[in-house]
């Protein structure tokens, strides 16, 4: 028990945080990212790696089910906190640390399956067992419930990759040379994964599915082969992903066959729903006088935020951290002279990186004409090209905006575009970007698909502003 106590204290000293941003939570996310970085609390992309689930943003009933699934997948010791506004983040993190470090709380939460979303993972003893508990008591008996849960995950999963339902299919996909539709023996983990197709027959008589998982259906792939399809959804809580966006993919191998975008979840009704990055434009629309400098600053920070995401997805964490630091400095109102040299160095290093350009070229091409036809007006339209062209456009825009950070002239919404395009509450720029996605993703590999989404970086919160307008008009 002493070891457990020590482990808990250590866990609390450097908790690994799974940051789940709900719709309308952009400002909270920024505060959380800043604080986590300064405290050196690592931000992790999946529940398996996390100790602390930090929900960032206003209450969102639509996201509850997905959040519950995330929470259920967090291994103990664990804690869950919710920061509704940016000011609450610090208190929430401290509360999370206290929860994690307290053996009494961990014991109690582990003993109460109710808190674990009805899932049985939590009997206290399991924390100390590391080996051989694969068939732990209660596990087998849960077959039905587990099956439900998996089906659930597959169709609205948190996107952390833990969609066992799909993985079952994926496994099939790798063996997908026909004739093994009921090869549950293999998928049950007893078979030899190296045996391709040859043992398709020996499990054929059984109709019981491995772990209660349904089998994949097949479809023709681009090379004319019949491969198994698996259904994976990206979002709504994927790391480095637009909060609230859910894209449902049909994958064969790691190639996207079909992509469909869900109607983005909207924040709960109320004033807190306004899209953070377009705030200055919204304030002008409501009759306020906003200095251009403030809008330009917000726009440059938005581009840096998008760049941070793109660089993280492209696997360049060092530069992603730099982009986010610059973003935070801009948002905290740092004077131009303080940020300009670092910003200059950053844009040069990333903009001139031949490796990054080589890795992103030819992916997700949107010509300027196509973009205009689709109603895109922002950097994506001006860039008119592939992922490389789009991130370079962001960098160019940031450089162009830099001299105007202190401009006090009033903002004219018809002259200055919002971060993602000319602002219009009826037709927010992100709507056109999201509409572009399915066509761009189909046929792309998973890694390329992530880059495409990151290079357009739509903000689903903007769509909520549209529905607010529609509601207002009746």
């Amino acid at each position, binding site marked *: 028990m002493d*070891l457990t106590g020590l*482990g*808990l204290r*250590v*866990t609390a000293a*450097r908790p690994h945080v799974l940051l789940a941003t709900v719709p309308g939570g952009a400002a909270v996310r920024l505060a959380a990212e800043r604080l986590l*970085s*300064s405290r*050196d609390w690592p931000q992790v*992309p*999946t529940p*398996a*790696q996390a*100790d602390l689930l930090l929900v960032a943003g206003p209450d969102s009933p639509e996201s509850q089910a997905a959040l519950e699934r995330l929470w259920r997948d967090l*291994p*103990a*010791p664990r804690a869950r906190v919710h920061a509704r506004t940016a000011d609450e983040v610090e208190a929430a993190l401290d509360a999370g640390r206290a929860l994690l470090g307290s053996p009494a709380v961990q014991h109690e939460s582990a003993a109460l399956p109710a808190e674990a979303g009805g899932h049985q*993972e939590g009997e206290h003893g*399991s*924390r*100390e*067992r*590391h080996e051989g508990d*694969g068939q*732990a008591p209660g*596990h087998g008996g849960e077959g039905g419930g*587990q099956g439900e849960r*998996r089906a659930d995950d597959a169709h609205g999963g948190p996107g952390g*990759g*833990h*969609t*066992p339902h*799909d*993985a*079952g299919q994926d496994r099939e996909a*790798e063996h997908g040379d026909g004739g093994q539709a009921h090869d549950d023996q293999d*998928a*049950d*983990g007893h078979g030899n*994964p190296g045996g391709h197709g040859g043992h398709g027959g020996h499990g054929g008589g059984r109709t019981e599915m*491995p*772990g*209660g998982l349904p089998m994949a259906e097949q479809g023709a792939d681009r090379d004319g082969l019949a491969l198994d399809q698996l259904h*994976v959804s990206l979002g709504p809580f*994927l*790391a*480095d992903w637009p909060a609230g966006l859910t894209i449902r993919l049909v994958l064969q191998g790691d190639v996207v066959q079909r992509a469909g975008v869900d109607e983005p979840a909207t924040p709960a009704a109320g004033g807190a729903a306004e899209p953070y990055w377009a705030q200055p434009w919204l304030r002008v629309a409501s009759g306020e006088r906003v200095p251009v400098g403030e809008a330009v600053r917000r726009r440059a920070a938005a581009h840096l935020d998008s760049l941070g995401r793109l*660089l*993280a997805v492209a*696997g*360049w*964490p*060092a*530069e992603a951290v730099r982009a986010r630091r610059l973003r935070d400095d801009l948002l905290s109102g740092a004077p131009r002279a303080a940020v300009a040299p670092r910003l200059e160095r950053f844009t040069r290093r990333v903009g001139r990186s031949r490796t*990054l350009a080589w*890795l992103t070229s030819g992916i997700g091409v949107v010509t300027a004409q196509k973009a205009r036809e689709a109603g895109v007006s922002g950097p994506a339209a001006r860039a008119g090209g592939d992922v490389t062209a789009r991130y370079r456009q962001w960098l160019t825009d940031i450089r162009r905006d830099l001299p105007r950070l202190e401009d006090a002239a009033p903002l004219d919404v018809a002259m200055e575009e919002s971060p993602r395009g000319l602002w219009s509450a009826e037709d927010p720029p992100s709507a056109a970007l999201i509409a572009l996605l399915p066509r761009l993703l189909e046929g792309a*590999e*998973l*890694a390329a698909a*992530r880059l495409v989404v990151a290079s357009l970086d739509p903000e689903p919160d903007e769509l909520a502003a549209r529905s607010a307008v529609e509601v207002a008009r009746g």
Partner: protein
Amino acid sequence: MVEAGAWWTLLAAPGLLVVLAALAVAGNAVLDARNAGRPVGVAGAVRPFLDVPRALVVQPRRLPAADRLLWRAGVVTVPVAAVLSTLVIPFGGHVVADLSVGVVWFNAMEVLTWAGLWLAGWGPNAAFSLVGGYRFLAQGLAYELPLMFALISAATGAESLRVGDIAAAQDGLWYAVWMPVAFAAYLAGVLAFSFLGPFAYPAGRDLAGGVLGEVSGVDRLLLRAGRWLWLASGAAMAVPLFLGGGAGPGLPAWAWSLVKTLLVLGLLVWGLRRLPVIRADRYVEFAWVVLIPLTIVQALVPAVVNLNR
């Protein structure tokens, strides 16, 4: 010449490897802290090691229909292979086993990682994890042949597969100097089999961690330790292969080995953050069109030199 088989080397080699890997982790943490604007210091450097006791209390994952046996086997293989690879690496005047086919042993252990990582991706029965496992195979197709030609270049130069002989053959002129392409391909290979930095493709952030996405607790600790152990092992192997082993003026051989290993390790840790992840679909093309011909020509150079001697 190196002295092989002293009993204490069996303990010292893994111990030294762990220390070197820990130094690499600490160095990386310092660079991270500086990059993120946190105070740089010892406290920040040792913070990643808090993950070790943490791993011991984290509940193991139970995923439906997971292939526990192969998953566990894969996770254990990666660090174990890294430790085994050090058996043939001379450190100063000592080595655990002075095999006549030392280079092949090192290469074989490194290829075990292919199986280990693929199984680690396969085991949890999750889509992203499996994609991550396959990514390592794709990456392997790209980096392995250039790496092998790099090893062959050094072995051809010394006309021996014994690592001690290769170090001794560089009397006067390091292979790193007259086989720069092989040295560069070897260093890239080290990053690739450690799946770190530009070669972190199997554990990519775009896959929410890939092969590392579903492991928690001790399994996760082993897999992550495996990465850094491989980095340290690769750095240590670079010294006898390309940097003349323990030879050097003034200092004893073990000190030269240590200094050179630390320099290579430092270079690798610094290099980790200089490039984005090089996706295998692009890297395979580069490797097969550019790197393999280059490394073959490189292997030809010592062959021709030795024939004419």
